[in-house]
């Protein structure tokens, strides 16, 4: 009864931190635990050094999103793939993935890049449905590449090394891009423009300060030069210098304070869920809730493959109902004990998790990117449901590959740690 009431509150739009907070308060009251215990877990998480990376990377992402980085990235990828059949959509996929990785939260991609890219596709005579579907579903492509925020958050919650996650996501992320690219190439139109070296060169020079950023982070971490947290502080200082002094897109005194505030509002809305949820999920784990679910599952499921299949279906539903951050905070602690008993590697689990949630973003009926795109392009949501279907199918194929072939995620990790 109480549970039903709480679910109803969530569906009515009561903020998730309050819904979870209420669940925690109610179950702690029943178990006669002091409600102060809700926050103990928050301070345990706060003892993890990686926590510092979250506000720093988020702020860097906000700076990049509000400068002219989207234009420069689009120009580079477009000028290099111009004239190649299917070049325009492929260049869009790459620009979106790059941008999503740097900004972490994926709704931003559609808002920042959508307005530039959609007309571009129409100009190249791609159909309206194809164009809408592609941009809506590419809004979350790139979540698997470093330094994306969901990867860091998963590492923090699951207590898995973020270094490993950063490298594990690279090949799965590329596979996702390749699959969608292959489809885009089959739909190619006659491109009106041909490759021009001077334009490519000038575009490359224009973006020369931003393009090395992901490589700087990766080489820095794997070359043993700095930790993930140090990488975050190097990134934020680098991004501030580049955007305010070199490109002069933003004014350090006029624009940065506002961006600081806005980015910390996002961090806060995640942190407050972390604050109320960690105590609660910890309580559920202590009460053996995951183990009870596991016992029931074990009656029907005997091998890891079937478990992963069930997990995928479950996570797709979660991914379309919840945003990626709260889904990670709430679901990961409950799934981990179950996954461990099926011998699933924790790094691989993280990649499966994020791939599912990434797809969930554009899954009808309630995937958030569908609504963002509907508002951005002023189209009915129903039209977007149809437009994303082929892309959804393709990404499910990618998901199945990533889920059932652990080596795709783990190969690079093993190779690097050798």
């Amino acid at each position, binding site marked *: 009864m109480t549970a039903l009431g709480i679910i109803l509150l969530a569906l009515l739009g009561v903020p998730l931190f309050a819904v979870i907070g209420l669940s925690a308060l109610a179950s702690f009251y029943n178990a006669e635990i002091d409600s102060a215990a809700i926050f103990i877990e928050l301070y345990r998480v706060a003892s993890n050094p990686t926590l510092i990376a979250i506000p720093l990377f988020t702020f860097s992402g906000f700076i990049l999103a509000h400068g002219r980085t989207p234009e420069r990235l689009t120009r580079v990828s477009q000028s290099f793939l111009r004239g190649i059949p299917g070049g325009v959509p492929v260049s869009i996929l790459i620009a979106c993935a790059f941008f999503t990785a740097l900004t972490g939260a994926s709704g931003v991609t559609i808002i920042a890049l959508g307005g530039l890219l959609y007309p571009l596709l129409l100009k190249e005579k791609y159909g309206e449905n194809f164009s809408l579907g592609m941009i809506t579903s590419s809004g979350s492509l790139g979540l698997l590449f470093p330094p994306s925020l969901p990867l860091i958050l998963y590492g923090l919650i699951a207590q898995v090394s973020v270094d490993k996650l950063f490298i594990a996501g690279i090949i799965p992320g590329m596979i996702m891009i390749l699959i969608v690219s292959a489809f885009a190439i089959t739909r190619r139109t006659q491109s009106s423009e041909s490759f021009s070296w001077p334009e490519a060169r000038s575009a490359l020079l224009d973006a020369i300060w931003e393009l090395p950023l992901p490589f700087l982070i990766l080489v820095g971490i794997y070359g043993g030069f700095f930790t993930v947290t140090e990488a975050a502080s190097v990134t934020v200082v680098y991004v501030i210098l580049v955007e305010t002094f070199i490109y002069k897109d933003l004014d350090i005194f006029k624009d940065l304070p506002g961006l600081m505030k806005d980015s910390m509002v996002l961090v806060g809305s995640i942190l*407050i869920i972390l604050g109320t949820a960690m105590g609660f999920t910890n309580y559920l784990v202590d009460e053996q809730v995951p183990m009870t679910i596991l016992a029931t599952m074990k009656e029907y499921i005997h091998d890891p493959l079937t478990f992963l299949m069930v997990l995928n279906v479950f996570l797709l539903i979660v991914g379309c109902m919840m945003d990626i951050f709260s889904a990670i905070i709430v679901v990961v602690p409950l799934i981990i004990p179950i996954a461990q008993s099926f011998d699933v590697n924790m790094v691989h689990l993280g990649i499966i998790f994020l791939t599912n949630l990434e797809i969930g973003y554009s899954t009808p009926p309630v995937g958030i990117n569908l609504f963002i795109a509907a508002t951005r392009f002023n189209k009915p949501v129903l039209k977007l449901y149809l437009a994303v279907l082929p892309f959804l199918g393709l990404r499910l194929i990618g998901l199945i590959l990533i889920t059932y072939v652990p080596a795709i995620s783990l190969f690079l990790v093993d190779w690097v740690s050798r």
Partner: protein
Amino acid sequence: MHILKQIDRFLEKIEGHLIVLILSLMILLSFGQMVLRNFFDMGIVWGDTLLRQWVLWVGFLGASIAVRHDKHISIEVFSGLASLFCKRIIKAFARFSAGIISGFLAWAAWSFMLFEKDSQSILFLDIPVWIFQTVLPYSFVVISLRFLLSSATFFANDSEQALK
């Protein structure tokens, strides 16, 4: 009502300034730590501990501002389908509930802070842990009041429209 709103705006300004100040210090300190560690093989011992406490500060101050801009993460299934009038009622109700729950969470945060105060744990340099934890009860109290205030505004607007 009017005075409450003015206080609310004033608080947001202070919270905003605090975020800018703390985040700037965080960037300087973390970058400084990186430079010290990599080039001079040293570092401030309590630097990282302070940085992590600051993360909670900027985060919870941000969460407090988030109420004013409707930026808290929620699942909105019904509000997309309901009529405009129903939507307002649902919104007002959702905010009212969030306000009440946040009130209880503020109480929990307050007693959590008191526990730490009693245990007299020290963070570093003789600074007790609980001083840093004051941000928790503070932000939940403000969050609670902001939700209640905004749900009251929704109701007030509706009765005005009904009169017209």
